[in-house]
């Protein structure tokens, strides 16, 4: 593939519309067709070819600076990149290294850490997963208890992480661990990098409602990690992790899920011969209007990024709005299917009609990444200034 055609010295110098066209062309020419609009989060085995294409083209890390091997996009260009990937239905790769760890290392890592880890993320040598949540630290993340105790030159880690996405595919995990039990809960948390092949680590897949093994539990039993695997200062992990919420927050509020559900609803309407049924058309139009409204509010927030403004807590409105819409589309779709909605396999074997799976997937949307209820608590205080 002619990757070089997509390697520019300064993407930011392109007019927005030209860059947008470039992204579209890139996707059209490079994205594996069979991976478009995947019904589930892809495992590494399936995603690897696409990951390596992105890697080879230098398109893997739009948000990293150029001198670390990223595309160095400014916020406006990052948005266009995301928007076009979403619109195209591009598959998400196991991207925790690029999306979360990379920016953290770039901001807080030692030169040695940057030099060692960043290239290996880009090359696909290290696939990362994230160890934040614990059984008793979900919505209340600061309650985490997995602890790391210094013993000579090593941290000894004991505890358990949960909801670790694609842990089975990963080589490394970045964790928030407790390194000090005195003081406030948010203090005494550090950011630690752990190779998953270290003795004492057990990974147990969790089957989710989609009957898929996207998540795992990760157990740490006297896992010994070199002292230097801490990123930034000891006990500063919470602050660092919070500060990094930026680029990926807008991802959580993108229209992708609702758009995908609405596309399925349209296919179902076609399948059942309802495209001229007034009741169906009315419901469909209502959902399409809501989706376009969501795209409008998403663009409005994106415009803030483009103007170089920092995203405030109100970015959470995107997730609230999108996930609620996503759920309602799938609920209607499921009811529309009548008895077919109870079938386990996709109707006619077609992912385009797999509304029951999408319905189940939508259940998670209001739980992960901050439950709807917790987000509203935060918004009440942060945006409406309620007590």
């Amino acid at each position, binding site marked *: 593939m002619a990757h070089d055609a997509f390697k520019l010295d300064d993407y930011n110098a392109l007019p927005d519309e030209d860059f947008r066209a470039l992204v579209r062309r890139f996707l059209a020419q490079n994205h594996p067709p069979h991976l478009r609009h995947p019904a589930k989060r892809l495992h590494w085995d399936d995603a690897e070819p696409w990951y390596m294409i992105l890697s080879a083209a230098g398109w893997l890390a739009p948000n990293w600076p150029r001198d670390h091997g990223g595309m160095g996009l400014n916020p406006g260009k990052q948005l266009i990149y995301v928007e076009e990937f979403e619109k195209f239905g591009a598959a998400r790769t196991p991207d925790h290294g690029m999306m979360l760890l990379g920016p953290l290392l770039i901001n807080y890592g030692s030169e040695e850490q940057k030099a060692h880890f960043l290239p290996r993320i880009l090359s696909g040598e290290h696939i990362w997963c994230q160890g934040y*949540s614990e059984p*008793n630290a*979900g*919505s*209340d993340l600061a*309650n985490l208890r997995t602890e790391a105790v210094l013993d000579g030159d090593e941290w000894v880690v004991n505890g358990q992480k*949960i*909801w670790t996405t694609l842990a089975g595919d990963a080589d490394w995990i970045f964790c928030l661990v407790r390194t000090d039990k005195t003081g406030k809960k948010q203090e005494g948390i550090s950011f630690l990098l752990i190779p998953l092949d270290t003795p004492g680590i057990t990974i147990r897949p*969790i*089957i*989710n*409602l989609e*009957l898929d093994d996207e*998540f795992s539990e990760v157990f740490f039993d006297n896992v010994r990690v070199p002292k230097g695997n801490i990123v930034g200062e000891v006990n500063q992990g919470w602050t660092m992790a919070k500060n990094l919420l930026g680029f990926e927050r807008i991802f959580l509020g993108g229209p992708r899920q609702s758009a995908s559900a609405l596309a399925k609803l349209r296919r179902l309407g076609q399948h059942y011969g309802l495209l001229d049924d007034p009741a169906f058309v009315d419901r469909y139009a209502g959902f399409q209007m809501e989706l376009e409204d969501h795209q409008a509010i998403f663009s409005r927030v994106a415009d803030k990024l483009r103007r170089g403004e920092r995203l405030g807590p109100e970015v959470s409105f995107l997730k609230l709005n999108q996930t609620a819409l996503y*759920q309602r589309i799938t*609920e209607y779709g*499921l*009811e529309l*299917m*009548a*008895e*077919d*909605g*109870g*079938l*386990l*396999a996709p109707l006619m074997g077609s992912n385009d009609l797999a509304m*029951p799976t999408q*319905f*189940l997937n939508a*259940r*998670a949307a*209001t*739980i*992960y990444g901050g*439950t*709807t*209820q917790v987000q*509203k608590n935060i918004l009440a205080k942060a945006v409406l200034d309620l007590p």
Partner: protein
Amino acid sequence: MIPEDVLSSMEMIRDSARGITGQDLTRIRKLRYGSPGFDRAVWSEICALGWPALRLPEDRGGVGLGLLPYAALAEEAGRALLPEPLIPAVLASALLDGAALEAHLDGARLVIPAWTEARGTLEPAGDPAIRDGKVTASRIHVPMAAGADALLVVGATQSALVAADAPGVTVITDETQDGGHVAAIRFEDTPCAVIAADPRPALAEAALATAAYLLGLMEGALDMTVAYLKQRVQFGKTIGQFQILQHMAVDARLEIEVSRASIEQAALQWDREGPTPAAQAAISRAKARASASAMKVTRDCIQLHGGIGFTDEHDIGLYLRKAMVEAARFGGPSQHRARFARLKPVMQEA
């Protein structure tokens, strides 16, 4: 008001049901996604208790109970997520007779009815084509067909009874979200016995029983959820202290209260006046309500459980998956709303 004697027979049947259904969902979980997806030994116990004969008059070998006690039984079945095909079997009982009925009732030869060619309806398919004692027809969404000894090809005025392993029977089985399965079945010149009967009243009863099954299912889901709310701690509080979660649980309880009232009232009316248009409309109302409520309640129960609710390991998801299947069986909310509107036109009542 429900008469005292009916109340006490409802209590009795609930007690007897609890004996079968057990205390947890371990058995249910084990049977999922297997074949036939239910336990034939449990089915024999069920037959021994006379459940498939519940609605039959005593002169046909039945127990002669009303629709209300049947609803109470179905509710207990739903609370326990019973996978055994109770409701299809009761439907078959209403249509069978003679030796076939006897074998069906004592559990020796389980008959599953195949009554529809279309999704989203409570209307039976047209009569199957029967020539020289052989039936040709297609039916879909036949529940638990892989566990049947015989199939009853139900039509609007006559039905055909065939052995499950008879020649000309082609079964395509699809798994369902709850771990059970349904079949699309083609009967091609299959030897059969012909039975003349109007299946509509029995189909309406099946709809009402399914509503009651969903009611029990909601109760089970909410009980589990309220227990979780009292136990799970976040932010230094049991999460049941959070007002927003309390109100979600109260809303679920209200859905259950209304569903119960709707179902019991419909069954009471049916037992009193038989399949009048008003009683038919009441059944549609109850099924529409229970289907919609069950989906809402089980969805909200997942949300109230948070992350753990999205795992297949936790039992709360079993209720949602079962609701996904049963909410649509014998008609879902929109079909029953349309049926209600036909039975009770706008101008009819204040």
